[in-house]
């Protein structure tokens, strides 16, 4: 029969192997990904008075609180930088990471009804979430730049953006997204069996923030506990945030030596995430 020569559009097989992600198909569903991004964004601020302004209000408020509590009351050093700028810098990047992580960790649970009815590559969901969060980040980033210009133009300002490092920003953002999504899909794959992990995510991410130099400088850890620094730098978010700060504020920082380690951890997490996700996505409807 002549038909045998024409290829099949889809071949459904049992779970085969341990890595089974169809990237071509993912590209074919790019339109869906973008429509979901648009949906996430429109829906989030419907029926709010301030609307998208919330995107900016949230990090500004957190930064203010940090400035007052950690900078003002606790008096933590901020590498000689204006503390508001210092905290905002860490904050916006951390909130991008943490929101990616916690949103994607609910992929299977919150989309159960949809996944039970229609097939589309399940990875579309976490990817669209990461992109929506990136839009939020970019808006916050814009405000950060405005503050940065204000502080940098002050006479005798300690702020000296390092433009060579700033050029790496897109790569840094991609790494953050991959890291957040990687952890997120690992957790989401495990939550199909163990629902308690979902409970863990909320406060786990919160605790994680304190293991990351968001509210303080990593130079503080190096000064006080130089022996623990190896362990401390295993946290892949630490070099990312320090890099970001060095680039935009111009702080000298030794944790940049740990950047390759961070990239390595990111790749491992992403790979592990994809493996777990591809194992779970085909049959999770049978167990959820």
């Amino acid at each position, binding site marked *: *029969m*002549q*038909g045998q020569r*024409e290829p*099949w*559009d*889809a*071949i*459904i*097989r*049992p*779970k085969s192997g341990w890595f089974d992600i169809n990237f071509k198909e993912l590209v074919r*569903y790019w*339109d*869906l990904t*973008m*429509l*979901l991004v*648009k*949906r996430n964004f*429109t*829906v989030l601020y*419907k*029926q709010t008075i301030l609307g998208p302004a919330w995107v900016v209000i949230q990090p500004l408020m957190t930064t203010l609180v940090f400035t007052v509590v950690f900078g003002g009351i606790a008096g933590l050093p901020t590498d000689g930088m204006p503390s508001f700028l210092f905290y905002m810098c860490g904050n916006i990047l951390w909130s991008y990471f943490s929101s990616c992580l916690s949103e994607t960790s609910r992929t299977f649970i919150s989309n159960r009804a*949809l*996944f*039970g*009815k*229609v*097939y*589309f590559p399940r990875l579309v969901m976490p990817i669209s979430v990461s992109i929506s969060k990136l839009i939020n980040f970019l808006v916050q980033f814009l405000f950060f730049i405005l503050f940065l210009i204000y502080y940098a133009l002050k006479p005798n300002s300690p702020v000296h953006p390092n433009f060579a490092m700033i050029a790496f920003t897109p790569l840094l953002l991609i790494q953050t997204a991959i890291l957040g999504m990687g952890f997120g899909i690992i957790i989401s794959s495990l939550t199909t*069996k*163990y*629902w*308690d*992990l979902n409970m863990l995510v909320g406060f786990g991410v919160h605790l994680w923030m304190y293991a990351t130099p968001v509210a303080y400088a990593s130079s503080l850890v190096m000064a006080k506990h130089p022996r623990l620094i190896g362990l401390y730098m295993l946290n892949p978010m630490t070099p990312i945030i320090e890099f970001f700060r060095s680039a935009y504020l111009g702080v000298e920082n030794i944790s940049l030596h740990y950047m390759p380690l961070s990239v390595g951890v990111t790749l491992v997490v992403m790979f592990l995430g994809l493996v777990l996700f591809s194992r779970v996505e*085909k*049959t999770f*409807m*049978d*167990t959820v």
Partner: protein
Amino acid sequence: MTDRTLEIDGVSKRYRLGSIGGRTLHGDLTSWFARVRGKEDPNLKIGASPRPSANATFMALDGVSFSADRGDALGILGRNGAGKSTLLKLISRITAPTEGEIRIRGRVASLLEIGTGFHHELTGRENVYLNGAILGMSRAEITSKIGEIIEFSEIEQFIDTPVKRYSSGMYVKLAFAVAAHLDPDVLICDEVLAVGDLTFQQKCLGKMSDVARGGRTVLYVSHNMRTVNQLCSRAIYLERGKLLYDGGVARAIDLYAGSGLRTVDRDLDGMPRGKLQGLLIRMLSMRILGSETMEYQMDDVMEFQVRFRSDAQESRLRLRLMLKNNSSSPVAMTQTEAFEVKPGDRPTLTIRFPLEGIAPGEYGIKLALVGGDPRGRSANYDLIEDVGHFIITDDPSRTEGFLWQEPVWGNFRLGRLEMEIK
């Protein structure tokens, strides 16, 4: 252009029974710890057998193979639990098979998925895009069809209003409009699960026959043999996960009709009933007389015997027969005249049930033994919800040449209207 759109090759689906997991990490750990120490699992229900066996499984589908071409309208028949829904889930890629392979050419869509992914905060137009993309259309494709879709949905003036302000009717119309313009190569319709009002169901059926005539493949799952007969060009019959027949519709319907509860001798004693039923007076068995398959012509008479035992004195006992239609709605009731039973009696009743007036279709029988007091109240001594099914076949010669349309005309055929023409 090739003809083959779907090939199912030795597909099995196994489900694990029992130990699917404790849902919480703690639960799994305690169960595991108890097993290691050889103690009873603290998370098992009391009385449940401790782990039926480590790998107790259930084959929802067992080595099923068939294929479908363009223009095929394929009926999928089988009793509940035969594996029909599992098969559709596999074809629509909701879950993966345990063994075997499914090959698909083109887009698969299901009329079940109407409105999937609709978000109530988005406008009608935004939802058309989102829903279309979820069902597999590209943005360009939707843009090229959006005019048609909006026109079909009949809600042009509300298209830019959030769907949360829609009436449920408008919502369904819009959702259906998207599904109808999907142009799938393989269309799945599961009548058992179909929701919506009558007109909507009719619209679904209409759409399906259009699709099949348009050279696509339709897979149709239904318990309604008459629509299967009307729509399908071929049928397969599944029983307990196995494909028993693939071929002509008539033969598949025969197989379906002969299966399940439609057997001649039936043990009523062992059938499930309510807690307080069948204590004093209990139906024991039933035997169908004069029919092997329980298929009847219109106006036939069904004959059967019911044997029961009595431990009570009842002077006004009756056997009551209630009919349920396809969708399990009650249709009618009839009963015997009152008779007397004494403790220790084990009588056999022979019943003649004239089927006159009952419209063609498939019906379930619900049987009860009731005692009535003179004031007209009745008390059930024994009641069994579903003792069996029978079919009344369509015979246009008795309905003045019309095929009976159950959704429109109901389950009863009244006497002919008398008239005079002046």
